[in-house]
């Protein structure tokens, strides 16, 4: 189905963009303070300006960063919507099951812990 394919391609770009520590670092910096210039972002990384630009372009392509002009400056804004979309569609869906699996594991471990030591070997 076409719609499905389009969505998957979008999600792929987001997952790929997130699968890199430098790009996650850049997102974290924008989360801490939004609307930064390339120069500001570059100053926090031991990387060439060109390298940072390349990473920002990948983030922009995935929709995770949106740029806006402000006078002569180009400001980078964190766009959390694609992550929210993935959360809502992929993670939320499995959360209940995952939570109950963890609850079961906890019960199981606690049950074992209560067994008398002599019987555990």
């Amino acid at each position, binding site marked *: 189905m076409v719609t499905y394919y389009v969505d998957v391609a979008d999600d792929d770009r987001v997952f790929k963009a997130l699968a890199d520590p430098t790009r996650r670092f850049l997102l974290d910096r924008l989360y801490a303070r*939004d609307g930064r*210039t390339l120069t500001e972002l570059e100053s926090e990384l031991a990387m060439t300006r060109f390298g940072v630009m390349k990473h920002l372009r990948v983030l922009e392509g995935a929709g995770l960063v*949106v740029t806006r002009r402000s006078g002569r400056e180009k400001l980078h*804004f964190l766009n959390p*919507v694609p992550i929210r979309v993935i959360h809502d569609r992929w993670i*939320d869906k499995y959360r209940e099951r995952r939570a109950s699996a963890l609850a079961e594991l906890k019960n199981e471990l606690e049950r074992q812990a209560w067994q008398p030591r002599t019987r555990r070997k």
Partner: protein
Amino acid sequence: MATANEAKVTTQVYRVYIKATPQAVWDAITKPEWTERYGYGARTEVDLRPGGAFRGLSSAAMRSHGAPEVAVDGQVIEADPPRKLVQTWRMLMDAQMAGEGFTRLTYEIEEGKGGVTKLTVTHELEGAPSLAALVAGKLEPTGAGGGWSWVLSDLKTLLETGARLEG
């Protein structure tokens, strides 16, 4: 070095790509029968001309938690259907946020390739730190909803599938 800039950026920018026409996205933002179906579920009344009034009416669920009848108010600055809506926006559900006064909200709708429409929401929140936290979703653990990213994710799901997100 960046100190001048640090203080002044209070704007938040959100973007979502939706498989729907620009008109469908416009309607979803401006028509009450659509606005009550996603996000906070407030029915909006908006007079789409410069100076026209905007009101977001509390849903039954919001009122049962003590919300006033009008949850959000504001005024239209620019309406260019189905491409651009600029308006002021003041949150009235919380005294502190109401006291922060009017903020400026811009919706930009652009048709993209393959029947996908790009919606960009720019919220200028100068002097409104409490509201900024709310719309950024930072108050979600307190039951205040997930802000713009939650609203826009829900809107995308509604327009693409005809259904709401679960839960």
